[in-house]
């Protein structure tokens, strides 16, 4: 039956359009400049995408519940500043904590993650216990986190100076390689795998999709919606903090403006990757593809010498088209 066949093809296209866009994008750039297709290029793109993947995966936890998280970028910044402030070399002149001994690498990282979790918990509690819409709740948190970060950043003797002189064992996380694969990419892939397991193999993941799919039905089905939301926002906060820490390690420094607007890139990547803006739908593979698309655009269009302002316009068009396609899918099946 040709009609059924056509429907199946249309279905396949609409479900996999994101991966095809990615392939087409790479193909077009490669045609314009064949030297784009090199290992070095892909290594660079992956390096740039690694922290963004982690942050976007964090946001996807919240988006799938039907919420949103505007505080992501500022939490990234705070985590970057916290970890950098405690991981400077002893001989650096302007140390944040002049008398701090060398801590084991993991300690400052865990402190940064704990701060991320704390703000995530705060978001979750405000959203679920005080019934503040996620957009507003996380908007407030975004401002609060920036304020807190700036106060910390302004402490004596740092006085809002960019934090530098990071320990090599820390910066190695961002720039080192194992078997010529960047460590930061390996970390991102491990986190993506863990998130995939949570999404697909655990009760928490199932409950997350259920809450996004129909919050009232989830409550009737015996899911503790409030507690689940708090846990999900906290996990998101932890992932932003990991992203922030790695961002400091990758760039070898941190300021209180780190991570500014990253939440918008992360939300855009998720949406382009097929995470539904109405909740209940989203996959790890989609989020990875979404981040990669923006990575390829950033890198590839610069590579072929396109004016960077054009990149902005192309990115904007892709974001809007992705959601237009998503909503059309939604109505067609309704």
């Amino acid at each position: 039956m040709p009609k059924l066949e056509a429907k199946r093809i249309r279905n396949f296209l609409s479900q996999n359009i994101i991966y095809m866009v990615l392939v087409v994008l790479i193909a077009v750039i490669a045609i314009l400049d064949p030297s784009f297709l090199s290992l070095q290029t892909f290594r660079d793109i992956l390096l740039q995408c690694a922290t963004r993947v982690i942050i976007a995966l964090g946001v996807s936890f919240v988006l799938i519940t039907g919420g949103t998280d505007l505080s992501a970028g500022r939490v990234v910044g705070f985590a970057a500043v916290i970890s950098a402030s405690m991981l400077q070399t002893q001989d650096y002149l302007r140390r944040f904590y002049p008398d701090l001994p060398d801590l084991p690498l993991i300690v400052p990282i865990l402190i940064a993650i704990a701060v991320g979790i704390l703000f995530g918990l705060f978001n979750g509690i405000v959203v679920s216990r005080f019934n503040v819409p996620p957009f507003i709740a996380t908007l407030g948190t975004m401002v609060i986190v920036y304020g807190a970060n700036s106060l910390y950043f302004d402490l004596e003797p740092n006085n809002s100076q960019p934090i530098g002189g990071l320990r090599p064992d820390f910066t190695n996380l961002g720039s080192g390689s194992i078997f010529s694969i960047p460590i930061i990419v390996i970390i991102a892939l491990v986190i993506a795998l863990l998130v995939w397991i949570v999404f697909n193999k655990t009760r928490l993941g199932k409950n997350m999709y259920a809450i996004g799919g129909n919050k009232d039905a989830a409550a009737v089905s015996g899911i503790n919606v409030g507690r689940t939301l708090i846990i999900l926002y906290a996990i998101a906060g932890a992932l932003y903090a990991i992203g922030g820490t790695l961002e400091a390690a990758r760039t070898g420094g941190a300021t209180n403006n780190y991570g500014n607007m990253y939440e918008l890139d992360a939300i855009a990547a998720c949406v382009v990757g097929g995470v539904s803006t109405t909740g209940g739908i989203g996959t790890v593979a989609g989020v990875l593809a979404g981040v990669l698309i923006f990575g390829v655009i950033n890198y590839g269009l610069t590579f072929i010498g396109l004016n960077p302002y054009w990149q902005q316009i192309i990115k904007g068009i892709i974001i809007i088209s992705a959601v237009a396609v998503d909503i059309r899918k939604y109505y067609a099946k309704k």
Partner: protein
Amino acid sequence: MNTSEYVLEMKNITKEFPGVKALDNVSLKVRPGTVHALMGENGAGKSTLMKCLFGIYRPDSGEIYLNNQKVDIVNSKIALDHGISMIHQELHPVPHRSVMENIWLGRFPVKRIGPFKFVDHKKMRKKTEELFEKIGLDLDPEIIVRNLSVSKIQSMEIAKATSYNARVIIMDEPTSSLTENEVDHLFRIINSLKSEGVAIIYISHKIEEILQIADEVTIMRDGKYIGTWPAGEITNDFIISTMVGRSLSNRFPERTNVPGDVVMKVENFSSPLPKSFKNISFELRKGEVLGVGGLVGAQRTELVEALFGLRQATGNIYINGKPVRIKSPVDAIKHKIALLTEERRTTGIFPVLQVLENITIANLSSYLKPYLLLDEKRRRKAAEDSIRLLHIKTPSYKTLIKDLSGGNQQKALIARWLLTEPEILILDEPTRGIDVGAKYEIYTIINELASQGKSIIMISSEMPELIGMSDRIMVMCEGKLSGIIDGEDATQEEIMRLATKFIA
């Protein structure tokens, strides 16, 4: 031909929904300046007929005449243009705006200043005052609607309806949330509309009220027109027997369950809300089907939602003799209670998720294996077994549940609850909106569960279903328990009498 005998004639209206013939050749003739009552059980087709008249539905066949002129009402705007207004049972005003803005919404009087048009508030106020005077309504046009009582909002809606120069006003259960004084006030407004020559189609379950206000009564049953009588020539009993008058055929499977000991006892169960259920006490036996009957608004859904921990309530619940506290669905599930909610779409299914997820969401913890992971094999097997056992028609467990028919969605939801291994199943209108074949299958499932010793509370607004399925029937009226009768020798007349027991 006398052109003025009827203002409205609906002829041979038929409307079919997938699997249900909601209206079967229905006719309705309404004279100007009269109140024409439209009566029938829940599901008789009254609201569907009115929605066809108001352009919300399009009839599959049939004709509508206004003053002997054939009209084609394709949407509500055209209905309003033809002078047909409808006051819905659920009012939807814009709460934060004033009374007059609500009335003239979408057609504000305007004044021109140069090339610009501005809303003319002075003119709007004047027009509103004139309107209120005409129907004898004492209300400040500039008061914010949020601050008004339900009856005042309703009066406002009536004023709005008349402002379209309505010749026919449809009122769907207008007194369902009014006090006695407010009803009197409504009747005064209706009488002044009558004297203006406006025809009113009045839908209500309240027979006393109908006999008081109506000039003519049309009765519908099972989507069919039964007849029209002058209100002065019929009695309360005649209306009831005509509304329910149908015989029970083999619509229900043979019953094999035997009720045993009491498993659940509810004492003095009351809602803290003023207009909700009060002082409900009943017992539920092992292997029993306890039907719950009553009219729309009898607070049956509110009662079972409170039993399931979705609403607050005071009173005592005992399960197997022990007092229990149920504050949330989590508690209820722990005590082996399940609730199939009335609104399948809003509180039942997860439309964008697979049948698998929909079936297993309420008992995920039973598939847990080490490290918080789920045993996917066992979970899929549970879903597949459910699909086979309950004959859920779906291409696979991976299909999104929104792509299934209503009856199969309902069976998937029953499967969800059966996997929690409940002892007490509460089913709220389990066969609403599903086709006849699927209904029979759900009846069979209910009987089987009862035979296995599960206890079932089944809310239904279809009286034959209550009588055909229940061991005992508990009837509620206006939030109160009006009686518990034996299912065996229950009659529709008796249920109807109990269901209207406390209605003034």
